């Protein structure tokens, strides 16, 4: 009852504030939206958790309900102004994700990871692109294009749809305090798959641009991708060394230092066409596997303080979901989402059989590939900017599929983690204590 009353009170205050400056934006808009989204997401998560659903679903629902396409308590401009929060959150998540990848411990799983990346991730790109071509009559903007152009655009969309969400996976692993072969495999695959998707999207998008506009500069495209990936890895190593030095020689205020680094990387990286995700992922991998410093010191600080970041990040993802668009494109969205999930399921089964993976991986790993959030939306945004004539419609389609996956996949992944028996096997760190909480059943 208390969460409901608090949600009503927060909504009332937000509505009252909206009557003050309905037409004028103020400098405090993003901060107000940040606090409001954080609190509403938290209390919505508490409510949803009572129904045995993942809190993550509550965070996303809160974002959808209070966002610009439902109650409009948070305006589109405010969600846009919080882009920086999303960027910094992505950098923090990437750094934590990279620092979780201990190459020594995933080496035995490498065969499974490689097979899943190939069969499930790359396989899903092909399946979704094919599906888009087949259901072309249901998608007006694809239907209007000649077959060759439609195929090229479907290819680019297929790659974008294959994008997964390390953030969702990490949030659920954190929530269920899971550890084990399944958890490690899923996390490794989604992190590696993100890199694969970034590289392949660059190629697919360049090819689609060439086919649609009739002009392409192969050398420039390759140069751009090489700069984005290799440059990001190079800078990532430098950032990793900087954090390592800090851990070794200062070792005070490590969390603050790392957050500042994430802020700088998120701001500057995007401006120079580097990928902050790859930079911080590389930094994390460097810290965990090649540095003399104890990366756990950094991970613990982030682990404990990550909840507020996740709350706002996912509420923002929900707030961007245009329900009207989802309703308009309901059938193609449902078909693409189903084809994507089916491709992951089939690909994972084949991969598990070929790699001799454990039964838990064979049965449940595909569910870890289904969630989508930041990267898919970023690629869709890129598509919107690249293809002026139909970019908006392509964006809407991606948004619809991401929305469906956001709503359903966390629930399924949570069930999978619980059934695998890996939940509650990880130590949780509490921010204010600074001590490890005893392992136990998930909250």
């Amino acid at each position: 009852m208390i969460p409901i009353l608090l949600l009503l009170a927060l909504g009332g205050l937000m509505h009252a504030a909206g009557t003050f400056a309905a037409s004028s934006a103020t400098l405090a808009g993003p901060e107000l939206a940040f606090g409001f989204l954080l609190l509403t997401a938290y209390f919505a998560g508490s409510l949803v958790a009572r129904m045995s659903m993942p809190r993550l679903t509550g965070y996303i629902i809160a974002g959808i309900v209070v966002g610009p396409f439902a109650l409009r308590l948070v305006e589109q401009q405010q969600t846009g102004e919080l882009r920086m929060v999303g960027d910094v959150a992505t950098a923090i998540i990437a750094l934590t994700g990279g620092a979780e990848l201990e190459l020594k411990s995933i080496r035995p799983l490498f065969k499974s990871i490689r097979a899943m990346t190939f069969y499930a991730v790359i396989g899903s790109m092909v399946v979704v692109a094919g599906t888009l071509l087949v259901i072309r009559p249901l998608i007006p903007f694809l239907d209007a294009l000649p077959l060759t152009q439609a195929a090229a655009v479907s290819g680019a969309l297929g790659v974008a749809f294959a994008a997964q969400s390390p953030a969702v996976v990490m949030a659920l692993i954190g929530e269920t305090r899971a550890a084990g072969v399944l958890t490690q495999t899923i996390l490794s695959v989604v992190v590696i798959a993100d890199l694969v998707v970034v590289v392949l999207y660059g190629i697919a998008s360049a090819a689609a641009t060439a086919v649609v506009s009739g002009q392409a500069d192969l050398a420039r495209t390759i140069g751009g991708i090489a700069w984005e990936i290799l440059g990001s890895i190079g800078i990532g190593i430098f950032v990793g060394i900087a954090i390592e030095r800090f851990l070794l020689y200062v070792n005070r205020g490590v969390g603050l230092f790392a957050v500042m680094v994430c802020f700088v990387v998120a701001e500057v990286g995007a401006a120079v066409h580097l990928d902050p995700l790859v930079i911080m992922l590389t930094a994390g991998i460097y810290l965990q596997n090649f540095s003399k410093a104890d990366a756990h010191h950094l991970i613990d600080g982030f682990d404990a303080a990550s909840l507020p970041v996740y709350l706002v990040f996912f509420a923002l993802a929900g707030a961007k979901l245009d329900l009207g668009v989802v309703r308009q494109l309901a059938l193609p969205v449902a078909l693409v989402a189903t084809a994507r999930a089916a491709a992951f399921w089939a690909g994972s089964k084949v991969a598990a059989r070929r790699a001799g993976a454990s039964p838990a991986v064979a049965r449940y790993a595909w569910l870890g590939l289904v969630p989508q959030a930041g990267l898919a939306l970023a690629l869709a945004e890129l598509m919107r900017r690249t293809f002026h004539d139909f970019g908006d419609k392509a964006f809407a389609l991606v948004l619809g599929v991401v929305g469906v996956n956001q709503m359903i996949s966390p629930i399924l992944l949570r069930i999978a983690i619980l059934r695998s028996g890996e939940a509650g096997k990880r130590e949780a760190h509490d921010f204010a204590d600074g001590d490890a909480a005893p392992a136990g059943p998930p909250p």
Partner: protein
Amino acid sequence: MTTDLPPVDTTPTDPGRGARAIIKLVIGLTALMVLAYLGGNRKVVRLQERLGISGVIAAGFPFIALGVIVAQPGVGVLTGDVLHKMQPLLHFGLGWLGFIIGAQLDVRLLDRVPAGTAYLILVEALAPFAATAAACGAAMLALGGAKWSDSAFWRDLIILGTAAAMTAPRRFRGFANRTWREGRSVDHLLAQLDEIVGVVGLLFVAAFFRPDLQAGWQLPGTAWVFVSIGLGVVIGVLIFAMVRVPRSNAEFLAVVLGSIAFGSGLAGYLFLSPLAVCFIAGALVTNFPCDQRDSIFKILNQLERPIHLLFLIVAGATWKIFDARAWALVPLFVVARILGKWLGIFTAERTVGGQLPQGYADHRALVTPLSALSIALVINARGVGGPETTWITTVVIGAAVLNEILVSITAPPRPARAATPAPILRAPTASLVPAPGMPGADGVPVDDLDDDDDLSEPTDVAHDGGPVYRDDDADDDDADDDDHGRGGPAGPAGPGGAR
């Protein structure tokens, strides 16, 4: 290629621009690392202590320098655009500090303060306020830097006066670590309470100097004062209810963080002072019966230092170090403040001195450091209405540095540390007559806002009905933030409780 093809964006990447930005990034990161190392390294902190530069600004000077460096166009990390984008973060920081300061205002403790203290605080704050504002205002008019008819000029004077009115301990150990309690000198009490002057100053500045905008609410300044107070009360009640829901510390952090962001965001959205609104909320939460008070203080303590350092970095980034006119005001600010202090102390002694307990307000210091809140004050000034002025930042930072130099020159020599464990000292009783060995007692000088008489948690033995403290002076060698793990100002029973 045909003309009817859809347009595509094929804008190439400029490799030169990218390379330049990378160099900036590298320089920015390196500067961050080197200066953060210098500022946080234990040896550097010890050296600072030995040299007597442990004040608000001196100890945090590497971070101000960091701000100056990263704001340079050649570095381009904290550019005007980035600072603009950081405004929400600054609002949040102001709200956080306001909440901390408000949360230390335990009215039950203030009930035990002798009669006349409120007058003492008022006079000792108002005199430097008036003297500094008048002197700086006259100088600005004489130098042609302002017009008396300009409302921003009056706003800036109020901010300067308010910055001058507040004082800080000579050794700054954080906002949350200097709550007055029985046994501490009256200077601590005054330093804590005159920060309320700063909060009130901001409350009025934000209410009466509002930007011209076409908003849904058109209210007179007085009404905005009441809106601020009402908003603070509502946020306080909400926080009071919200902190009962979390079940883990991580959740608790999220709720406290979100509550303060929401409160300061609402204040900023309405062009009110986040610091003032959250101060009211913090005072309310602390003074309600609340089991979660200790947990709130733990969280507040965790983020206080980063926020303080952030303010120092931003202050450095907005510091126009080559603004000659502002520098001309710095010595004037310092001299006017000292004169104002003298006038305030003199007036207080002549009027209420006889009513106060013996030794309670003797040996008052004329040269005291500027409160760390003064930095927050000028940063808050960037967010309130009217045209933005940068000269007050220069004046306040310059004056803070100059003041701390003067403080270190005029400070009495520190007594040598005892090799044997310090004796257990008894806090004065409610009458506030100093106990033997306590500052203010015969033969023991009242320290001039030095935290060296800081007292640790109470022992579990109480004599004569009063709490007993152990002097933890011997631990003071460590850096400031070592204190953050001590459970915060609240102690086992909240701020000023049974410590």
